[in-house]
Structure formats: C-alpha cells, structure tokens
C-alpha cells in the first residue's frame, strides 16, 4: 500500500515517529493513573496488614493465576502479531489478534465469575461489606481497593480489546506491511500496558 501522510508532517517517517511517541506519552498517563491506586493499596496495607492478608486469602488464587497466564499469553500473541504485520503476513496477524481478543474475553469472564462470588459472600467495599467471617479492621478497605483496582483494570481491558479489534481490520484487509504497522503497534502497546498492570495486581491482591 502506498504510504500517505497527513499534510502537516514533512514525511511518513515523521508521522510514524510522532504516532509512536504520542502513544508512549499516553501510556505514561495510564501508568500514573494506576500508580495512585497502588499508593492507596500500599498505604492501607501498611496500616491494616491483617485485613489485607485475610482478604487475599479469601481470593480464588487459581482464578487469578489463570487470568495472569492468559493475559501474558495474549501479550505474547500481540507481540507476534506486530512482528507478523511488519513482515506483511496479514493473515497471521489477524488470527493472533483474534486470539488476544479471545484471551480478553476469557479474562473478563473470569473476573465476572469472581465478582459474582464476592457479591454473594458479602465481600464488598465500604458500608456494603457484610461477610460474617472476616473481622480484621480495615477489611472493607481491602475490598474498596480491590474493586477500584480491578474495576479500573477491567475497563482498560475493554478499551484494549476495542483497540485490538480496530487493529485487526487492516489485517483482514491485508493492509499491513513493512513501514505500515502503526495501528497494530500502538494497539499492542496499550495491550501490553494492560498486561503490565495485572502483573502487579495479581501478586498484590491474591498472593501476599
């Protein structure tokens, strides 16, 4: 496909560079967004270690593990998709992106199952916490942090999936090739970020 570029860029190379830089800058905003959450986590964990231990013990660790593995695998798929796109192998790219999307669906499904479990058990934030068995002071804070963190993360998973789906369109139309991978590259970066955040959330919420 011929390389076109917007008129205010001197050439396509500059446009690519600008697009990539823009994406990285946007990722830094996402990093700072989740940072605030990790601060809240650390703050309350320091104050209420018993509650946080109790809360993470109540998590279904193997569900979290499954989600972690699936998300890492989807990151791998997306990295490969970017590589394939650069080599012009559009069909490979397309199916790798579809695989990553399926992983996203799996992830959200597991989270939904977990959330339902939490609702049933009364493991909820703030005044809604009604689990009779967990009594450590600050336990409702653990769930406030848990739901805010995983909820925000799940929202980003949805956004990431939308970006991946959008990036799959040129693959379907056989448009990717050397020098023309911007969309799958940027979507991939976003998806890797989603994975990155979960890499931290999993041990902090489920394990320790």
């Amino acid at each position: 496909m011929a390389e076109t570029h917007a008129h205010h860029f001197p050439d396509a190379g500059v446009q690519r560079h600008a697009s990539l830089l823009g994406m990285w800058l946007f990722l830094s905003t996402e990093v700072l967004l989740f940072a605030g959450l990790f601060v809240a986590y650390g703050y309350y964990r320091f104050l209420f270690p018993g509650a946080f231990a109790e809360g993470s013990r109540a998590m279904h660790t193997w569900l979290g593990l499954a989600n972690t593995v699936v998300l890492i695998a989807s990151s791998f798929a997306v990295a490969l998709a970017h590589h394939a796109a650069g080599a012009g192998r559009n069909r490979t790219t397309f199916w790798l992106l579809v695989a990553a999307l399926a992983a996203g669906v799996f992830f959200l499904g597991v989270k939904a199952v977990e959330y339902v479990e939490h609702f049933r058990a009364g493991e909820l934030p703030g005044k809604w916490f009604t689990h009779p068995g967990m009594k450590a002071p600050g336990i409702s804070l653990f769930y406030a942090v848990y739901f805010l963190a995983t909820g925000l993360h799940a929202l980003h998973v949805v956004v990431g999936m939308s970006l991946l789906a959008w990036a799959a369109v040129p693959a379907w139309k056989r448009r990717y090739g050397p020098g023309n991978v911007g969309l799958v590259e940027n979507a991939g970066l976003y998806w890797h970020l989603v994975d990155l955040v979960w890499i931290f959330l999993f041990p902090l919420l489920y394990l320790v």
Partner: protein
Amino acid sequence: MTDHAPHAHGSPLRYLLVFLGLLVLTVVTYVTGKMHLGGWALPLALVIASTKAGLVLAFFMHLWDTRGAPLVAMAVSLLFIVTLLALVFGDVAFRFPLARPDRMGNYEALPVGALLGDGPDGHAHPVPAKR
C-alpha cells in the same frame, strides 16, 4: 530524533524466550506466594513483578531497542511514582500515633465501625462518646 525503524528488533524467538521467562516467573510468584515468608513476601513479590514488567517493557514493548523520548517518559514517570510512594509512606509511617487511622487513641485493633455509627443514609456520622 531517530526515525523509528519498525522491524529492526525482535525475532519471534526472542518473544518466545521472554514469554517462557514470564511463565516461569509467574509460577515462581505463585509458589512463593503460597509459602509463609512473613515480611519477605511483599518485597519478593514486588521484585518478581518488577522483573516481569521489565521484560514486557523491554522486549514486548521494544523499549530495549528504543532511544530517546519514550524511555525518558517511562523513567520520569517511574521517578514520580517512587516519589509519591516514598513521601506518602514517609507520612503514614512516621505519623504521630494518635493520628493514625489504625490506632485512633487506643492501642488495640479496632473493630469495624466502632467509634462512628452508620446513619440511615449509609454514611458514617459521629456518635457522641459514651464515657
């Protein structure tokens, strides 16, 4: 600024190795998370998670092959996050004990909602102390 060369980096083999490394580290963190390591559990988990994150950033996201602004953006972000964490901890860790949310004047652990009662609107409202 260097023009970004899209495919100078990363063969599929490299991605595979990173993926396997990530899987191994995930297993490690799961196993060590189940052990009772006391005070070491959190630092260890953070070290493992940071290593995994580093792998994703460096190789899946190609920071290893990038120069310039993206690296700086991530480095500066990290610096600000560390500052935020450090100074927030500097507050809560060294705060005057009576002002700490988990102590509140007596040195035993507090049951939930002990000093303040829930009003009909579901929010906490002060309850006069009974002494």
